[in-house]
């Protein structure tokens, strides 16, 4: 039995001997993996099947295009109306990413403040929760009264994207190994001689924040960012719809409203398809960022490589 154990140990050491080789991300991507291929092929096949059935149904039953346009007609509209749709898409993207960027800045900034001071945590966190649980659809009409339209739309996107980042980052900043924090007490509690004790304590907190809590919180932050990316788009669309009902706007959601009023259903579908696609692309992009940042050490990213 001892021999078996020793052999196992030797095996482990041998595989560790070349960490750079085993950790190469392209290793699994370069050779075609049947399971992986199936995971891409199956949903695509289903999509093709549904689109084909839809097309056949519309043609066979002669459904008028203002009730249900055929996929081919939606595609034609997408191409024909591209200048309008593209401008609207850019507008919506601008709102989404600006909202997301502000949510990241605000969420991370506030989470850091909360982790540094209990007083700040107790005073502010309840309001962050209130902001989160109040439906943004209900807030947006109010915002439109007090703010210029663009600012109101942006604020909506910010409000919904802000909370997942705040709560996840806060959780991440708190989920540091207790023993590692003790190690910091042991090694990091050196303060400049001139500093008063409270400043020394503050400085060692900042050190622990930078060297321990920041990297420990990264996976949590990235998970929050993935949720927030999708929510920022939803927030932007909700606000645009609210603004659109007031007769103003230029984003994709406004195009949807406008198409509905004019019974331009093919364009409505085209705008909707673009919105979905945008959401998917945002999710995939943020997932890729997350994987890139965590692939060397975090379990979530490592499981994917196997």
């Amino acid at each position: 039995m001892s021999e078996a154990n020793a052999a196992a140990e030797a095996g482990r050491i041998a595989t560790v001997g070349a960490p750079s080789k085993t950790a190469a991300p392209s290793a699994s991507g370069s050779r075609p993996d049947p399971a992986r291929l199936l995971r891409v092929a199956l949903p695509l096949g289903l999509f093709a099947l549904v689109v084909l059935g839809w097309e056949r149904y519309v043609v066979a039953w002669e459904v008028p295009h203002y009730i249900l346009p055929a996929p081919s007609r939606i595609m034609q509209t997408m191409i024909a109306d591209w200048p309008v749709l593209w401008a609207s898409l850019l507008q919506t993207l601008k709102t989404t990413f600006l909202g997301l960027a502000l949510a990241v800045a605000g969420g991370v900034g506030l989470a850091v403040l909360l982790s540094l001071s209990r007083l700040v945590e107790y005073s502010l966190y309840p309001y962050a929760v209130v902001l989160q649980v109040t439906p943004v659809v209900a807030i947006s009409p109010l915002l439109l009264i007090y703010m210029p339209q663009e600012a109101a739309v942006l604020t909506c996107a910010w409000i919904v994207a802000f909370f997942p980042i705040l709560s996840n980052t806060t959780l991440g900043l708190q989920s540091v190994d207790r023993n590692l924090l003790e190690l910091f007490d042991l090694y990091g509690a050196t303060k400049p001689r001139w500093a008063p004790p409270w400043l020394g304590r503050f400085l060692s907190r900042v050190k622990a924040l930078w060297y321990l809590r920041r990297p420990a919180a990264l996976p949590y932050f990235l998970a929050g960012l993935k949720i927030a990316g999708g929510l920022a788009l939803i927030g932007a669309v909700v606000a645009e719809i609210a603004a659109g009902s007031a007769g103003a706007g230029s984003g994709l959601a406004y195009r949807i409203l406008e198409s509905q009023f004019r019974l331009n259903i093919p364009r409505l579908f085209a705008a909707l398809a673009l919105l979905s696609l945008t959401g998917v692309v945002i999710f995939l992009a943020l997932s890729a960022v997350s994987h890139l940042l965590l692939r060397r050490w975090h379990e979530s990213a490592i499981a994917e490589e196997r």
Partner: protein
Amino acid sequence: MSAIQARTSPPPSESPPAEGSSRGAGLVALRGIDKTFANGTLALSGLDLDIRENEFVSLLGPSGCGKSTALRILAGLIPASRGDVAWIGGGTAEDHRGEIGFVFQEPTLMPWATVADNVFLPLRLRGVSRRDAADAIASSLDLVGLSKFAHAYPRELSGGMKMRVSIARALSLRPRILLMDEPFAALDEITRFKLNDDLLRLQREFGCTVVFVTHSVYESVYLSTRIVVMAARPGRIVAEIPVAAPTPRSEAFRTTPLYAALCREASAALHGAMDGAMDGAMDGVMDGAMDRAVDRAADAGPVGAHADL
């Protein structure tokens, strides 16, 4: 910063190996330590312990006897309720923090950092630059035999290797005293024996004092120059057993009559300590377990199995 570098410079082989019988100069002492936790538990009561230079002291006791608490108080991680930690030559725990290395039961590594960065951590926190720390990191990794793995991540290492990194990190500040809190308890026996030998070699080459918390009789006898047996409820010292065996020890030591006798003595002390705590409720069970343990220590049987490593 310069103090750290000054301490990194002397070659490790310079210091003489500590003989079991020799008495070093005093280093640090716990005097009349009481510790009551916030929930009212009396963890330690009237603890007195002197640690001398180049000693290897084991704190041996059942779980809940406050041995880890005593170690934490010694490190200045938690305050004592009464009594004090007296460093020979004066100064508070704060002043001596750079001289203390601490190893936890778990490796407690930063998963996002490479092995070298993990070992660099205490130096970095002391304000040493990466370039100035390079030698200290390399020599610490060399001491634990992990030089080749400087750029590996913790997840790529086995449990024993992670523990070695943890030890290398504790050594990176060139501590005068190494405090270890059941560092090998979670490892399999083979790895534990290997690390026991490595730890002895390390202490010999490096010449530092070690205070080692364990609940294993065999481990404490094999490693120590002195065993301090503790009892629970409240945590206190019930026996001190000097281990007068020659110090460059090897697996052969486990086959000697002295080893068996010491195991028996430590077990008996531990046994007495546990009898008091159990109030008879668990006596039957514990008696059986302890007797078997003592028999195993006295037998040459398991020792043969170790010798072929």
